């Protein structure tokens, strides 16, 4: 079998590695026009800030690919013929395949703003984007970042590290309003203030204004304000990269349409990761998933089907994490911006420092926990996964909360304060902290529940 993978991001590479594990004899080729070697897209910001070099964000050393017989081709796949099972590459070679995986990722989304093609206006998705940003932001004073999500705050942090004055435009009334409840967003807002980032809430980009040389000089916002900016970062989201899929006439909508086995409309052609759109997403699930973790999970799942072990894609319990300047964030399960009907939300926040914990639960379903947000606290993934999977009552979770504490040694333990507040807020079933922090507690807890957390895929 010859498997050809278009795209060497986390999805394509996970699929390649999993295929190598399942089918040691398979021939595997990875085609990319971005870089020869796989790198961690989420780490691009650290290269700009000088924390890391490009070679430091490669998850595998260069010998890895040859030793595992993963052939790397640095070229653009310009067209695809699904009848003859052939790809045409930009280096004039053709590449035939038995199975093809499209893991072409995303492109930055632009909303047709006047002036968006000016020099100094760009998104940040790829390594070439980063190189361009590094060139274009050299020696500038002011920048505007459009978009109140993860990439938006990343761009703000990157520019801040170079001493560039940043104004962040956020469409909604608080930061990342589609995901974060207001109190958590306010903590992020405090981080932005502490780092002297100007934020304009309820403000969008209206127009980009040029200077005499065709470079951006300022932006005009929807509130009519004109902001000086020699560079403008567009962080209003990404959209699936469909260029190759469309040359082959595959079924597409916003993304490449796939069934639950991640098969496209053409035989032997699969799509996974950012570029795939699920025809029938599960309840409360989005059709297009654009996360590192979901990309990894889809890549692993699709490899099973490719290797003749059909495996439907199941996302499993939700989790994610991020860091907003100095504030770490983790989520396990579902935490809607506003609690849904039948759900209660308990929120604790330290009065002075940047620590907060939110636990959602369903009083009508034996108080089962449904999700958790942690800000400035580290929580154990496997412990929370087990609690969520076994619908553990919130009282039990709080009693055992120390078993989920993943903060380093000597860090202040906030569990007593959290439980005190819970008991004040919900006095019907008072809770006392039972466990101590540490590996032993975690081990006893997971062994006691005797349910092995599964990955859900």
């Amino acid at each position, binding site marked *: 079998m010859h498997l050809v993978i278009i795209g060497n991001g986390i999805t394509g590479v996970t699929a390649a590695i999993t295929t190598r594990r399942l089918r040691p004899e398979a021939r595997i080729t990875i085609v990319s026009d971005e870089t020869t070697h796989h790198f961690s897209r989420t*780490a691009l910001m650290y290269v700009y800030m000088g924390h890391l070099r490009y070679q430091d964000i490669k998850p595998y050393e260069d010998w890895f690919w040859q030793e595992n017989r993963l052939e790397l081709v640095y070229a653009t796949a310009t067209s695809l013929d699904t009848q003859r099972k052939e790809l045409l590459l930009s280096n004039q070679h053709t590449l035939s395949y038995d199975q093809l995986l499209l893991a072409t990722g995303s492109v930055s989304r632009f909303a047709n703003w006047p002036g968006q093609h000016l020099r100094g206006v760009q998104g940040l998705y790829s390594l070439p984007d980063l190189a361009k940003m590094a060139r274009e932001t050299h020696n500038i004073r002011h920048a505007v970042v459009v978009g109140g999500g993860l990439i938006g705050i990343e761009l703000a942090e990157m520019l801040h590290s170079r001493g560039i004055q940043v104004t962040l435009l956020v469409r909604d009334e608080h930061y990342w309003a589609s995901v974060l409840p207001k109190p958590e967003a306010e903590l992020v807002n405090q981080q932005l203030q502490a780092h002297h980032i100007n934020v304009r809430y309820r403000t969008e980009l209206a127009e980009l204004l040029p200077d005499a040389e065709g470079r951006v000089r300022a932006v005009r916002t929807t509130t009519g304000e004109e902001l000086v900016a020699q560079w403008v970062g567009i962080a209003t989201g990404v959209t699936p990269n469909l260029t190759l899929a469309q040359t082959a006439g595959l079924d597409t909508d916003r993304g490449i349409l796939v069934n639950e086995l991640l098969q496209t409309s053409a035989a032997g052609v699969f799509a996974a990761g950012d570029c795939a759109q699920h025809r029938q997403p599960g309840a409360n699930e989005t059709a297009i998933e654009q996360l590192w973790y979901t990309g990894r999970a889809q890549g692993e799942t699709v490899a099973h089907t490719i290797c003749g072990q059909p495996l439907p894609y199941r996302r499993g319990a939700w989790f994610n*994490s991020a860091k907003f300047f*100095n504030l770490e964030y983790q989520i396990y399960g579902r935490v809607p911006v506003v609690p849904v009907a039948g759900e209660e939300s308990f929120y604790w926040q330290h009065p002075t420092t940047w620590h907060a914990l939110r636990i959602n639960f369903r009083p009508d379903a034996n108080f089962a926990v449904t999700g958790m947000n942690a800000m400035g606290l580290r929580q154990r993934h496997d412990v929370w996964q087990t609690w969520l999977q076994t619908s553990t009552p919130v009282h039990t979770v709080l009693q055992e909360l120390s078993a989920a504490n993943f903060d380093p040694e000597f860090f202040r333990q906030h569990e007593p304060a959290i439980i005190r507040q819970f008991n004040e807020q919900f006095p019907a079933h008072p809770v006392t902290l039972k466990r101590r922090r540490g590996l032993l507690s975690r081990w006893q807890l997971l062994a006691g529940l005797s349910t092995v957390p599964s990955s859900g895929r």
Partner: protein
Amino acid sequence: MSSTSTSPLILTPPPVPHTSGVEKALLTGVGVGLVALATVAFDADAQRAKICFWVALALISIGTLGWAWWKFGHQPAGVRQDNLWLRGSTGRGAIAWLTAVVLTGFYVVLYWFSSPDDQGNFGPLNQLVHALDPFSQALRHKPSDQWFLYGTFYTLAVLIMGGRALWKYRHSPYQRIRTASVMFFQLGFAFLLPGLLLAFQRPEYYFSYFWPLKYDYLFPGTVGYLLKDGGPGLGVFMVFWGAAISFIGTPILTYFYGKRWYCSWVCGCGGLAETAGDPYRHLSDKSRTAWRWEVRIIYTVLVLIVLLTALLWLAASGAVPALQPITDPLSRAYGFAIGSVFSGVIGVGFYPLLGSRVWCRFGCPMAAYLGLLQKHFSRFRITTNGAQCISCGNCSNVCEMGIDVKQYAQRGEPIIRAACVGCGLCSTACPRGVLNLENGPREGRYQASPLIHPDSLRILS
């Protein structure tokens, strides 16, 4: 076809240098201090040299501490790594090269050109050594020598740069306490206490160094000397203490806490690496090739010192008279190659080029011994948090021991490596809260998280 062409080269332009007035003033203090220190060496006027010496130390100390406060103290607390690889001083640039040459040169002069001659002249370091005479008299009741000068500089470096580390990592209680610990052990156990012992006419003994790092502490010659000069009570205690920690305390403490109880909390070499070496920690080589050399070299050194010690005792017992003429040259060869060249000249002199733990990683037999215990007989490991790793590489970058931490984290595996000194920086630097240093039950110590499927590919074959 399997064509691999080169990727687009990324050239991140360095940031535009910006040096504020406050920073310039503080650096001026450091610079004037360095000039004053240099003049001491050449000053014929002993009195003026003494004054210059103390003024120099004061300026360097205050300037460096002030600079650290300015760099880290007046920003929000958190991981501060901006421009680490883009600055010449910390990115193997011209300034790093110059610093390495100066440091290495100092060690060469100290080890081989500053032994006192018949008139008590300490070569090029003479005035610097004598500038410390009053202090040495007060502490040790004897005149200064080149090793006292070195000890003073060393301790000062740990304290000042320890102050910097406290500012830099003030958001992490683990780093604060650990930094305070290495500062305490260097000042108390490796500087003041040995000095006081001398003042009381006792052997200069370092209670924080043990065989096989301080190899001669279990050589027959040193044991005999300690028993004789230490007196019946103290001398016996010193020999007992050294042997007990080496053979009983080390396995027990390492079982409960891992190698870190010594390497990043107590040891003086580790203390210097964690403080003065902190700006260079990321320079350690993370490649598989470097790991292979590490394994080849460090265990060879351990075998050498064990054999040498055994030979010395065998010779001292008189059982094999043929050994007598070769043991002395052998131990002098070890002292030169390992004790001086490896641990001093290369170990510290090359900080700005190879990172701060070259000696600890490739050469230290104590680290090798602790590492074997940590790998096979310990409750310590670095836990990976489920499937949260994003392979960003920050953990590997800050690992001073050159462990490619992300290889484990991205596979959901705990990190159990002989080299790990437990400095905790991987956990501190991780942006997603994935890594944690933990002591726990040994059952399932190597078990990976079920939330991520490892790729089952070997990383060191």
